[in-house]
C-alpha cells in the first residue's frame, strides 16, 4: 500500500471512531490500535483468571452453604469473563496459548489487586464491594469503546459484575450487623483493601503517558484520577451506611468540588507490586504456571483423542 493509501485508511478509521462506529475484526485498523487492544484485552482476561485464585481460596471454607454457592457462581462467572475476553482478543490475531505464555513469562500483566492475599471471609465481601466496584467504574466506560468485540464483552461483563458488587456489599452489610468479631473482620478487610483499590485506577494522570491515545480510541473515556474520584465519592457513603470507617485520616468532604478529598496514595507500594514484588505475585504466577504445566498431559490427550476421532471419521467416510 502506498503511504497515501494508508493515510487515507487511517483517516477513515479515525472518522469512524469519532462517529461512534464500531471497529470489527475484519476491518482495517492501524497496527498500534491492534497491539494496544491485544495488550489491554488480554490483560483484562488475565485479571479475570488470576482473580479466581484469591476467591477460590475461600470456596472450601465459606461459612454457609448459601455463601458457598454464591461464591462458586461468582468465580464461575469470572472464568466465563475470561473466556469472552480471550475470544475477543483472539479476533485480533493472537492465540490463547500465546496470551497464556505472555502471562506466565511475566510479559503480560494482570490487575495488581490480585497480588494481595484473601485472608478472611470478610475479604470476599471487600473484594466484591471494592474491587468489583472499582472494576465496574473502569468497565462501564468501556461499554462504549470503539472495538466491537471488546465493547460487547464489556456490556455482558458489566451486568454480572454489578451483581457481584452488590453481593460483596451484602456480605459486608451482614458482617457489620453481626457480632463484634464480625464487625472487626469487616473493618479489617476494608483497611487492607481500601488503598489497593484506589491504586486499581492506575498512576496519576500526569504519570500516565498513554491516556491521550486511549481517550481518542475510547479505550478510556475519563482519566485515572477522574475515575478514582468517582470511586471514592461513590464508596464513602456506602461505608458509612454500614458503619465502617475508611482508613484515611485525610478523607474529607470538599463542598467546592462536591467530592471527597483523600490522602496520598503510597505509590512506592504501587510500583513494588506492579514490578512483581507484592505479597502474592510469586504465588499467583506459581499457581497459574503449575496448573498449566501439570495440565499439559491432559491437553495433549484431548488433542490426541480429537485427532483419532477425526481419523476414524475420515476412514468411515472412505
Amino acid at each position, binding site marked *: 500500500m502506498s503511504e497515501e493509501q494508508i493515510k487515507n485508511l487511517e483517516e477513515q478509521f479515525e472518522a469512524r471512531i469519532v462517529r461512534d462506529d464500531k471497529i470489527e475484526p475484519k476491518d482495517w485498523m492501524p497496527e498500534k490500535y491492534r497491539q494496544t487492544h491485544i495488550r489491554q484485552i488480554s490483560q483484562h482476561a488475565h485479571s479475570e483468571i488470576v482473580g479466581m485464585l484469591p476467591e477460590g481460596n475461600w470456596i472450601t471454607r465459606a*461459612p454457609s*452453604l448459601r455463601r458457598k454457592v454464591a461464591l462458586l*457462581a461468582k468465580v*464461575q462467572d469470572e*472464568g466465563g469473563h475470561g473466556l469472552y475476553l480471550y475470544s475477543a482478543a483472539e479476533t485480533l490475531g493472537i492465540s490463547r496459548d500465546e496470551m497464556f505464555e505472555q502471562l506466565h513469562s511475566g510479559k503480560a500483566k494482570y490487575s495488581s489487586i490480585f497480588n494481595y492475599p484473601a485472608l478472611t471471609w470478610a475479604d470476599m465481601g471487600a473484594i466484591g464491594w471494592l474491587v468489583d466496584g472499582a472494576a465496574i467504574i473502569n468497565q462501564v466506560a468501556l461499554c462504549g469503546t470503539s472495538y466491537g468485540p471488546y465493547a460487547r464483552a464489556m456490556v455482558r461483563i458489566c451486568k454480572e459484575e454489578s451483581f457481584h458488587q452488590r453481593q460483596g456489599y451484602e456480605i459486608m452489610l451482614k458482617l457489620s450487623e453481626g457480632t463484634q468479631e464480625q464487625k472487626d473482620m469487616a473493618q479489617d478487610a476494608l483497611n487492607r483493601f481500601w488503598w489497593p483499590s484506589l491504586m486499581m485506577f492506575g498512576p496519576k494522570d500526569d504519570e500516565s503517558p498513554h491516556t491521550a491515545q486511549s481517550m481518542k480510541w475510547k479505550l478510556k473515556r475519563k482519566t485515572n484520577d477522574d475515575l478514582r474520584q468517582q470511586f471514592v465519592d461513590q464508596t464513602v457513603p456506602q461505608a458509612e451506611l454500614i458503619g465502617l470507617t475508611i482508613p484515611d485520616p485525610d478523607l474529607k468532604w470538599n463542598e467546592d468540588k462536591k467530592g471527597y478529598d483523600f490522602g496520598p496514595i503510597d505509590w512506592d507500594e504501587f510500583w513494588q507490586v506492579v514490578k512483581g514484588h507484592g505479597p502474592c505475585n510469586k504465588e499467583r504466577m506459581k499457581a497459574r504456571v503449575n496448573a498449566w504445566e501439570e495440565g499439559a498431559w491432559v491437553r495433549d490427550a484431548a*488433542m490426541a*483423542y480429537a485427532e483419532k476421532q477425526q481419523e476414524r471419521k475420515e476412514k468411515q467416510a472412505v
Partner: protein
Amino acid sequence: MMKHENLYKYIIGIADNSLILGQRMGELCGHGPSLETDIACTNISLDLFGQVRSYYQYAAKIAGDNRTEDDIAMLRKEREYVNVLLVEQPNTDFAYIMTRHFLFDMYHYMFLQELQKSQDLTLSAIATKSIKEVSYHLRFSTDWIKRLGDGTEESHSKMQNAIDDLWTYTDELFHLTDADKAMVKAGVGVDVTKLKDTYYTKVSEILQEATLEVPESKYFQKGGKQGIHTEHMGYLLAELQYMQRAYPNMEW
C-alpha cells in the same frame, strides 16, 4: 429419637455424597488443566452444593428442631458424615478427579432416575430437578474418560492407575443401611442393590470404549455409610467446618 428418623437419615445419606464431592471439586478452582475445565468443575461443584441445600433444608424441616442446613453441613463430627468413601478421595491428578467423578456420576444418575419415582414428593421433586444437572456431569466425565483413556500413552496409563485405585470404592455405592432398607420398604427410598449390575455393565462399556481395562479385583472398601472414613476426611472437614467452628452461632 426423632419422629421420622429413618427419613432424616436417608436424606443425609444422599446429600452427604454431594456435599463431600462438591467440596473436593471446589478445591480445584483456578488450578485445572484449562479454563474450560476450571469453569466446568466450578459449575459442577455449584450444582452439587445447590442439591445439598435442597436436601438439608428438607432434613432440617423433618428434624423439626432449630437446626439449619448449615448446622447439618458443618457442625457434625466426622463419624456422623455418611458419604461413601469414593467421594472423599483426594484430587491426586486430573485422571483421579475425572475417574472419581465418573464412577460417582454413573451411580448418581441411575439413583436419581429411581428417586424421581419416590412416594416422598419432596425427594422426587429434588431428584427431577437434580437429574438434569447430573446428566450433564455424567456427560462431562464420560467424555473425559474417553479422551484420557484413548488419548496418549501417558494419559492412558494415568487413567488406568486411577481406575485401578478407585475401583475398590465402587461396591459401597450399592450397600443398604438400615435406614435405606426402611425407606425402600416405605416406597420412599431406592433399592440401590438392584442398580448394581446395570451400573457395572454401563461403566465397563465406557471403560472399554476408552481402551481401559476393567479391574478384576474383588476386594472392596467400605465404611463411609457407617461414618468410618479414610484419613483424608479429617483434613477435608477441618477446612469445610473452619468458619462455623471458629465463629460459632453467627449469621453470614
